[in-house]
C-alpha cells in the first residue's frame, strides 16, 4: 500500500522586505502610534478596560473580607488578578479590531518585517495596560486606605506587564483567527503566564510589606528571565501566526 506524505502548502510573500533598522523602527512606531492615536480619539478600549478593572476591585470587596489585617497580605493578589483580567480584555479588543476591519491584511501587505507588526501591537497593548494600571493604583489606594506608591511595586508591575503583553499579543493573534475568538484567549494565556503571576504577586507583596529588594531578587530575576525568553520567542514565532 502506497503511503502518502501529507504536505501543507502555504504562499510565500511576494513582497520584498526592507530590512534596515531605521525602517524597522519606523514601522514599529507607526503601528504603535496608529493604535494610540485611534484610542485617543475613541477611548473605547481604555474606558472598557478601566471600568472593568474598577468593577473587579468592587467585586473583590465583597468576595474577600478586605479588613485592615488581611489587606496587607492580599492586596498584591487582588491587584494582579485585576490586571490579568483587564489585560485580557484589552488584548482581545486590540487584535479583534485589526481582524474585523481588515487592517491586519493591510499590514501584512506592507513591505515591513512581520515582527515589526508584533512589536508595534505589543507596544500599544503595553501602553494601554500601563495606563489602566496607573489609574487603578491610586484608586485602590484611596478605596482601601493603603499606600501603593512604592517604587519597587511599580517596577514589578512594569516587568510583569511586559511579560504578560509579550505572550498575550502572540496568543491573541492566534485566538482572534479561530471560531471561538474572545473566549479562547484567557484559556490559552493564563496557564502559560503563571510564572509571571507567581513572581509578580510574591514580589509585589514583598515590597508592600517593606521587605528589602535583595530578598526579593529571586522573584525579580524570574520576571526578567521570563520577559527575555518570551519576548524573544514570541517575535520569532509571530511570522507563523499571521502568514496566510
Amino acid at each position: 500500500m502506497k503511503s502518502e506524505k501529507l504536505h501543507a502548502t502555504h504562499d510565500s510573500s511576494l513582497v520584498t522586505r526592507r530590512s534596515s533598522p531605521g525602517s524597522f523602527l519606523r514601522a514599529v512606531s507607526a503601528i504603535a502610534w496608529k493604535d494610540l492615536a485611534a484610542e485617543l480619539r475613541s477611548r473605547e478600549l481604555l474606558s472598557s478596560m478601566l471600568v472593568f478593572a474598577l468593577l473587579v476591585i468592587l467585586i473583590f470587596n465583597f468576595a474577600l473580607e478586605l479588613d485592615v489585617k488581611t489587606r496587607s497580605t492580599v492586596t498584591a493578589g487582588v491587584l494582579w488578578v485585576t490586571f490579568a483580567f483587564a489585560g485580557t480584555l484589552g488584548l482581545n479588543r486590540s487584535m479583534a479590531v485589526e481582524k474585523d476591519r481588515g487592517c491586519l491584511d493591510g499590514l501584512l501587505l506592507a513591505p515591513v518585517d512581520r515582527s515589526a507588526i508584533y512589536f508595534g501591537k505589543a507596544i500599544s497593548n503595553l501602553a494601554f495596560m500601563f495606563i489602566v494600571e496607573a489609574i487603578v493604583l491610586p484608586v485602590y489606594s484611596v478605596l482601601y486606605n493603603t499606600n501603593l506608591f512604592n517604587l519597587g511595586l511599580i517596577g514589578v508591575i512594569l516587568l510583569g506587564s511586559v511579560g504578560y503583553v509579550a505572550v498575550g499579543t502572540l496568543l491573541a493573534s492566534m485566538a482572534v483567527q479561530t471560531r471561538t475568538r474572545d473566549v479562547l484567549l484567557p484559556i490559552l494565556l493564563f496557564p502559560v503566564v503563571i510564572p509571571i503571576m507567581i513572581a509578580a504577586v510574591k514580589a509585589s507583596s514583598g515590597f508592600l510589606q517593606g521587605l528589602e529588594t535583595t530578598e526579593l531578587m529571586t522573584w525579580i530575576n524570574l520576571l526578567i528571565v521570563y520577559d527575555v525568553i518570551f519576548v524573544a520567542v514570541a517575535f520569532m514565532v509571530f511570522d507563523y501566526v499571521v502568514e496566510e
Partner: protein
Amino acid sequence: MEPQPLALKVLNIFSAVLLALATWLVFFYAPMELVMGQVQRIFYFHVANAWVGMLGFMVAAVAGIAYLRTHDLMWDIIEQAAVEISLVFFITTIVTGSIWAYPAWGTWWTWDPRLTTAAILEMIYIAYLMLRQGIEDPDRRARFGAVYTLIGGLSVPITFLSIRLFRTIHPALIGTASAASQGGFDMTPRMLHTFLFGLLTFSVIFVTLLWHRIRLGRLAGKVEQMKLEVMQW
C-alpha cells in the same frame, strides 16, 4: 485504514504482557514498605506514568518545532497524538497520586510544585485541544498547534521552577527539593527493580498508544482531504 503492521501487533501483545508482569511484580515481588504499608505500591505506577507523561510532553514540543521547520503534516499528527496521550497519562498520574495522598497526607490534593505543575500542564493540553478545535484550515491548525506547544513547552519548566521556590511536602525522589520537603525515598534493590520495570512497561505502552493514535491521525487527515475535495465540486 491500513491494516496494522506486524510490529504493531507484536507491540500490542508485548505491552499487555509487560503490564501483567509489572502488576505481578508490584504486588508480589516488591517488599512491603516500612512507613506507609501497602498504599506505597501505587508509587511504582504513579511515578512511571508521570515520567512517561513528561516524555510525551517533550515529544509534542519537538514535533511542533519540526512542523514549523518542515511543514510536513506528519509532525502535526505526531504532535497531537503525543499531547492527547500525555494528557491521559497525566490524568492517571494525578488520580493515582490522589489515591496515595489521602492515606499518606490526609488530603486528596495539595498545592505543592509537582501537583500544581501537573494541573497547569493538563490545562495547557486542554487549551491546545480547544485551540485546534476552533480552526478549519489544516495548515493554520498545525501552525497554531505548533506555536502553542512551543510556548507551553517553554513555560512549564519555568512554572515548575517558580513554584518550587515555594515550600513543598511532596517526597523528593531524586535529591531533595528544598530544606522544607519531608520524606525522601531510599529504594532497596527489589523496589528499584520493580520501579524500573514499571518505567519500561509504561514507556512501551506509550509507544504503542502513540503508534495507534498516529495511524488514526493519518486516517483523519485523509478523510479531511477527501471532504475538501468533495466540497470543491
